[in-house]
């Protein structure tokens, strides 16, 4: 298993063994991520974060990950203020930034942009979201959260809830969960069903359900995503739909004791705030897990662990 120099573009390119290794390292990173232990293993290394699209959590957790390990960070989150707005190709931007840094993290609106970056950069490139395409580090931190909770993914009943059409995180998550042998339930309004081409790539057929109530007692993981208002032509229709797919204390009273609720965040009402105090809530832990997982990835692709 050679991680040094590896590009992390798509979750599909990571083997089960590689994912296990990432999680093993991430586990060791937790005390450092919490600030309880100090580390300098990336001292002298420079991370470039190129955010052509806005992001809060992903960018900040990558930057925190680098800082926690003693490394430096350059980058931008507002391309309008850079020469890119003058019409420079992405290929040229990457060639230059590659000369300034040891590892590149990129988020870009066009699909396949991270693959392009990986081809033009000598140094490893990590995809932080390419349009409606892949967002492998989100998938990894989601998986890490489930793995820490349950040990093994195989046989878990996982409900993916909400916008399964446009939500890119659920596409790669569904893929990897099915590879690892989870039972997948898809819970969404008809307008936001998971696309056929995504379902076709799943190892086993997911169960599509309209109503959360029908499955609530069996579910181990409620993975909730945001339903965007803009997807609905009619605001009353949106309100109706959004209500149907929200997680409340009442709903969870019927769930397994061990069931957890996850969300890639930001949430806007899909999970009632009353759920925050319940033992099921795992979304803040999940957001934190982004740091150790990204620390693990950075140190693995830079070859220091």
């Amino acid at each position, binding site marked *: 298993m050679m991680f040094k120099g590896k590009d992390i573009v*798509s979750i599909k390119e990571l083997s089960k063994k590689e994912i296990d290794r990432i999680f093993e390292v991430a586990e060791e990173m937790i005390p450092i991520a919490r600030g309880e232990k100090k580390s300098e293993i990336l001292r002298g290394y420079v991370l470039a974060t190129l955010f052509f699209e806005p992001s809060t959590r992903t960018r900040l957790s990558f930057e925190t990950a680098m800082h926690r390990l003693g490394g430096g960070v350059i980058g931008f989150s507002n391309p309008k203020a850079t020469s890119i707005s003058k019409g420079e*190709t*992405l*290929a040229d931007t990457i060639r230059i930034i590659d000369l300034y840094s040891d590892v590149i993290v990129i988020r*870009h*609106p*066009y*699909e*396949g*942009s991270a*693959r*392009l970056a990986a081809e033009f950069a000598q140094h490893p490139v990590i995809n932080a979201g*390419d*349009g*409606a*395409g*892949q967002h492998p580090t989100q998938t990894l931190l989601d998986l890490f959260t489930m793995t820490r909770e349950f040990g093994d993914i195989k046989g878990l009943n996982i409900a993916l809830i909400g916008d399964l059409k446009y939500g890119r995180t659920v596409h790669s998550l569904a893929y990897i969960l099915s590879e690892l042998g989870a039972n997948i339930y898809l819970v969404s309004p008809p307008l936001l069903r998971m696309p056929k*081409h995504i379902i076709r790539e799943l190892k086993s057929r997911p169960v599509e359900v309209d109503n959360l109530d029908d499955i609530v007692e069996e579910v181990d993981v409620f993975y909730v995503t945001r339903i965007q208002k803009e997807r609905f032509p009619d605001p009353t229709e949106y309100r109706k739909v959004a209500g149907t797919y929200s997680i409340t204390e009442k709903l969870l009273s019927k769930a397994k004791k061990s069931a957890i609720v996850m969300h890639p965040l930001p949430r806007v009402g899909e999970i009632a705030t009353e759920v925050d105090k319940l033992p099921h809530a795992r979304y803040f832990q999940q957001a934190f897990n982004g740091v150790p997982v990204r620390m693990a990835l950075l140190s693995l692709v830079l070859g220091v662990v």
Partner: protein
Amino acid sequence: MDEEKTLKVQKIKNGIVIDHIPCGRALKVLKILNIEGDIGSSVSIAMHVRSRYGWKDIVKIEDRYLEEKELDKIALVAPTATVNIIKNYEVVRKHKVQVPDKIVGIVRCTNPRCITNQNEPLTPEFYVISKEPLIIKCKYCERDMESEEIIENII
């Protein structure tokens, strides 16, 4: 030779005969070879011709030979085609077209938000997921393309 009796097409001296084209695809084959208007040599097309294996189209072009890339393009439109090289009225070579494992620079990605459609210095590239039916996947945006969609996007 059923076909020779029914087809009153002149023999060509030198050139190619693209045989066993699936019915209705002859014009598409001509299109991808950029054969339109005055090309200075004779072209004949036979559509819906009876053959040993059912119906087929045939295209005959005088004084024209094909490059590797053109053969690959024909394979996408007419995977069953055979290209016969004619020299001095005789078939001197037969070439069964074959869908390559990787499709490089001959098809454009259908996804408008794909990075290959944004003026970047990139050659579009696809992996062949299945040959029968033909399904290809963009190396960059990972979008799948099938049959007619592929044909419409041949560069």
